[in-house]
Every structure is written in structure tokens, then in C-alpha cells.
């Protein structure tokens, strides 16, 4: 392995050593980057480029291709199935906001002292590790009329005959699918937030607890400011995540009965209808939305969280933040004191 121009064995002049070093350096830079870059090009940028090209043609996987200009893009807005699938992502966005709120609550509670805390954490997290197909079967079974969900609801006093068909009734089936995604991902969000909460300076809690701040105040003045970056990041990511919702509807309902999300419809157009050009245009259009969201996210972080806890914040910035946090804790203390005196 370590032989190409290795200067280890014989003592050479200084000049020769630098020369071989330089050669070695170039060799290792090229040797270690060529395969990853090739794979990146082959499976990311080449398909990306081809897809942009496809989007201007009327074509199938095999056979003749005709140039149609912007027509594919226009039909994204004209076809009802595509447009309504974009509306569907609003369900997933609402679900994502609830999911983040619940995950935040669970993370706050579980990062405090709780009996069986580890067990709760494990139970809530485990669904994240289940594969998509298995999840599809589990939820088909769960929602079948008279099966799991209906049985549980009948324990709570509901009459099974009055319950809707969860996956067929168009008023409710998208919420049912959103719940499946909640079930799968809420634990992952929770673990993420617990990680962020654990990195908050513990002396802040001490100070707050000594001053008699209750759990809600601790959450509002210490935990929330400490993790606002990661929460904001997750809210923004949930927008792109909702637009690209795929697995749940794909495996549970196959997009039937008005549950086809954007990517499910795209998959059908690409593989069943073989309208490759239109499917490509849909993908490009969604990627543009995702870029817009990402740029918005970068701007928000640049201007709104300049002092916040970012991943690559400098030592000085961290020091400043700690100082600000301590100051906030002090203010809280003073506030409490004033309240006590007023009493």
C-alpha cells in the first residue's frame, strides 16, 4: 500500500523529499476522490442533468422522443391529479408541525428525571427502525374495518358500526396516513431534540431551580432558546419532507382513494403510464421548490440566529452565547426576586 514514491527507506536530499511528498500528495488526493466523485456524478448529477433534459420531451423509456418545450411544465398545473396531490402535502405539513410539537414535549419530559424513562424512549423510538413494507402491512391491518383501531376505540365506548373506513373514506384517509408517518418518525425527532437539550449548559437549570422556576418556566427560558436552531431547522425540513411524502401512501394505500401524494403520482406517471417527460418535469419542479426552501432556510439562519447555537459556531460566538444565556438566567432570577418581594 504505502510504497508509491515512499521516502521512508533511504535518506535523500531535502529537495527530493519535498518533491516525492508533493507527488504523494497529488496521488492520494486523486486516488481518494476519484471513486466517490465518479459515483456522485453517476448516480446524482448525471441523472439530474438527464432529467432536466427529459422534461422538455414527450417520451417513454424506449422509443421515439419529441421535443415539446415547456408543455410538460404547463401540464403540471393543468392536470387535476397533480395539482390536488400538491394540496395533499398540506395534510403532511400539519402533521409535521404536530409531530414536532409532540416530539419537543416528549424530549423535554424525558430529558428530566422520569421513571422508566429509558423504556419510554425506546418504545417511542423503535418504529423508526421498521422497514417501509412492514409498516405498510402493519397499518393496513391496523386500519382494517373491525380490526385493531376499531377494537381499541370500541373499548373506549365507540360503536364499531359507526366508525368510518379509515383508508377508504376520503374525509379521513389522509389523516390516517399522516398518523402512520407520525408513528414512524416522532421518536426520531424526539431523540434529536433530546440530544440538543443535553448539550445545554446544566448550570442554567441549577440557577433556575434554586430560584424556584417551575418546569414550564425552565422550558420557556432555558430549553427553548437553547434548541431553537434545531427546532427551526426541523420545521423548515418538514416543509420539504411534506412535499416529498412518499412511503406511507405508497405502501399502505398505493395512492388510491385520493391519497396519492406528489411523488406517488409521479411514480405512477413514470412507471405505469410511462410518461417519462412529464414525470421528469414534475421532479424538476419539486426540486426547484426544495431549493427555494433551502435558500430561505439559509437566509433565516443568517439573519435570525446569528448568535444561536449552530453546528459550526466559533469559540467566540459560543462564549458570547453562554454569556447571553447566563445573563438571561440572571434576569430570570431578578424577576423572581422582585415577584417574591412584591408578595
Amino acid at each position, binding site marked *: 500500500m504505502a510504497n508509491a514514491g515512499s521516502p521512508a527507506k533511504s535518506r535523500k536530499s531535502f529537495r527530493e523529499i519535498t518533491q516525492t511528498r508533493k507527488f504523494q500528495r497529488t496521488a492520494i488526493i486523486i486516488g481518494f476522490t476519484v*471513486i466517490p466523485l465518479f*459515483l*456522485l456524478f453517476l448516480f446524482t448529477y448525471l441523472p439530474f442533468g438527464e432529467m432536466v433534459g427529459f422534461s422538455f420531451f414527450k417520451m417513454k423509456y424506449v422509443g421515439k422522443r419529441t421535443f415539446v418545450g415547456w408543455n410538460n411544465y404547463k401540464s403540471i398545473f393543468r392536470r387535476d391529479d397533480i395539482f390536488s396531490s400538491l394540496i395533499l402535502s398540506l395534510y403532511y405539513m400539519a402533521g409535521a408541525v404536530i409531530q414536532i410539537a409532540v416530539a419537543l414535549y416528549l424530549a423535554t419530559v424525558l430529558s428530566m428525571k422520569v421513571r422508566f424513562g429509558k423504556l419510554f424512549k425506546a418504545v417511542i423510538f423503535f418504529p423508526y*427502525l421498521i422497514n417501509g*413494507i*412492514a409498516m405498510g402491512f402493519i397499518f393496513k*391491518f391496523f386500519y382494517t374495518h373491525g380490526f385493531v383501531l376499531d377494537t381499541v376505540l370500541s373499548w373506549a365506548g365507540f360503536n364499531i358500526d359507526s366508525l368510518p373506513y379509515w383508508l377508504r373514506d376520503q374525509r379521513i384517509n389522509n389523516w390516517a396516513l399522516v398518523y402512520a408517518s407520525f408513528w414512524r418518525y416522532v421518536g*426520531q425527532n424526539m*431523540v434529536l431534540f*433530546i440530544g440538543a437539550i443535553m448539550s445545554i449548559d446544566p448550570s442554567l437549570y441549577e440557577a433556575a431551580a434554586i430560584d424556584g422556576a417551575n418546569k414550564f418556566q425552565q422550558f420557556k427560558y432555558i430549553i427553548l432558546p437553547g434548541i431553537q436552531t434545531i427546532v427551526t431547522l426541523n420545521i423548515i425540513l418538514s416543509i420539504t419532507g411534506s412535499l416529498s411524502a412518499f412511503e406511507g401512501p405508497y405502501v399502505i394505500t398505493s395512492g388510491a382513494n385520493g391519497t396519492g401524494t406528489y411523488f406517488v403520482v409521479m411514480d405512477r406517471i413514470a412507471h405505469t403510464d410511462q410518461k417519462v417527460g412529464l414525470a421528469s418535469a414534475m421532479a424538476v419542479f419539486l426540486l426547484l421548490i426544495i431549493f427555494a426552501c433551502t435558500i430561505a432556510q439559509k437566509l433565516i439562519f443568517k439573519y435570525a440566529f446569528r448568535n444561536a447555537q449552530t453546528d459550526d459556531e466559533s469559540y467566540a460566538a459560543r462564549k458570547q452565547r453562554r454569556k447571553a444565556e447566563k445573563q438571561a438566567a440572571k434576569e430570570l432570577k431578578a424577576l423572581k426576586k422582585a415577584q417574591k418581594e412584591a408578595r
Partner: protein
Amino acid sequence: MARSMTAEERRHKVKHHYTPGYIVWTIFKYFSLVFISFWMVIPLYSCVVTSFKTDTEYNSTNVMTPPSDWLNFSNFADAFSKANMGVAFRNSGIILVCVLAGSIIIGTQIAYVLNRFKFPGNGLIRNLFTFAALLPGIAMQVATYEIMNNLHFINHLYGYIILSMGTDVISIYIYIQYFENISVALDESAIIDGASYHTIYWRILLPMLRPAIVTCIILKGATTYNEYYNANLYLQDKQKLCTVATSLYTFTGPMGSRYNLICAGVIISMLPALVVFIIFQNSIYNGIAAGAVKG
């Protein structure tokens, strides 16, 4: 880890006073935890219960009624052979080993170069990877399918393996982050001792990266083991080339209503994940937290 432990301890040193507010909060806290956990467990519990039932029992009892015989493993044996899961586990094993080995080598090497060497194009390569992370794989599959077809990669394990190895941007980020915490002085002293860059990478840095590698094995391993969309698309010979995730597709056809069998299959497919989860719980949590930083 050590720091967060002390953090937790210090946080709870303060004694609670049993005020009404505290009692209400405690009741609410445990109620909410039990309530949410209940809804998390119910879908899985019903699945476990059903998997132990015989056909007649399944047809005659409610889905939530426990089975009469908790040792009735016949559904598991049946599901295992019907869904060809022996082959599926072998394939998934081969895929996991190759993909993990490949992505560790590729990921650590590119991270080493990007972190340790300044050269024109370094920033460009980083940006190319960051940008790639934004593109959802499903969106690109239309064009990827054609490329896979042209390379004759469809219906071959190696084709699927190379595709899955592809670009694992999150692992690369984790490795780069980890390299930043390993002092460059270490490399420099090795260079003075006459070690080549190759030796530094293989003998010094790679062993030191072990915690990061464990994290990535867990993250990448879970996604690879659970991946089914590409496996379904590119491994079309479902008899010989099924993976654990796609073998479950067997149950969508005429067996689609025999849920006792299906649930047994689902549980078999979950078992490896469950075992790994129980053993490596903490590394998994840390991995999720680390992997999602740049998300």
C-alpha cells in the same frame, strides 16, 4: 456522554416540594407518556398477537385477543419458507456487508482528503456533496432507472450494491466533523517519522475514527436493511434476488388477507433490527443526533 450524565445528575439534585402543581404535573407527565407509548405499541402488539394464531383462531377471534398458544410458531416457519426468507436474509447480508464496507472506505477516504489537504477544488467538491444531499432520491429515479439499464446493472446484486454505496453524504459529514477533532499534529509527527499519507490514513487515522464509523454503520445499516424502493425496482427477480424488505411483497397477492401469516413475516423482518437496537441503543441515539445535525 459523560458530560450529559453529570448534567442530568446535577439537574435533579434540587429537591422537589410536593405542591399541588407538582402533583398535577407529575400525573399529567406519566399519563401522557403512557398514552403515547400505548399508541406506539398497539400496532406492534396486535401484530405479535396475530402472528401466533392458527387460521381458524384468526378467523374466529378478535384481532386483539391473545392467542391460545403462545408457542405456536407454525406461522413463522410458514412465512419464512413462503416468502423465501432464507434467500432474502442471505442477500440482505451480502448487500449489507458490501455496502457498509464500501461506504466506510469511500466515505473516510474522501473525508480525509477534504479535511487534511488544501487544494483547488476542495470547496467545490464539498459543495457538490452538499447540493446532492438536497436532491431526494425518489425524484431522480426516472433518470437513474435509465442509467442503471444502460449499465446493465438491473437484476444484479452488484448493481444494486454500487447504487446503494453511491453517495452517502451524511456519513461524509460525520467523518469530516470527526477528523476536525483529531489534531493535525498527529499527522505531522508521523510525517517527520517518514510515514506516507497512505500509512497515516490506514494505520493512524482510520483506527481513531472508530466511534464515527460505528455511528455510520448503524445509520447506513438501518437504511440499507430497510430500503425497498430501489430493491424492488432494480432486483426484479423476486425468487433469487429478494431482500428482507422486498420478500414481504410476496404477501401482497393471494395471501393478502391471511394476516396471521403476514404478521409473522413482518416480525421476522423486524427481528434483526430489534436485536441490534437493544444492544446498541445508546450508539443509535447518538448516531441519530449526530447524523441529523446537517440533515
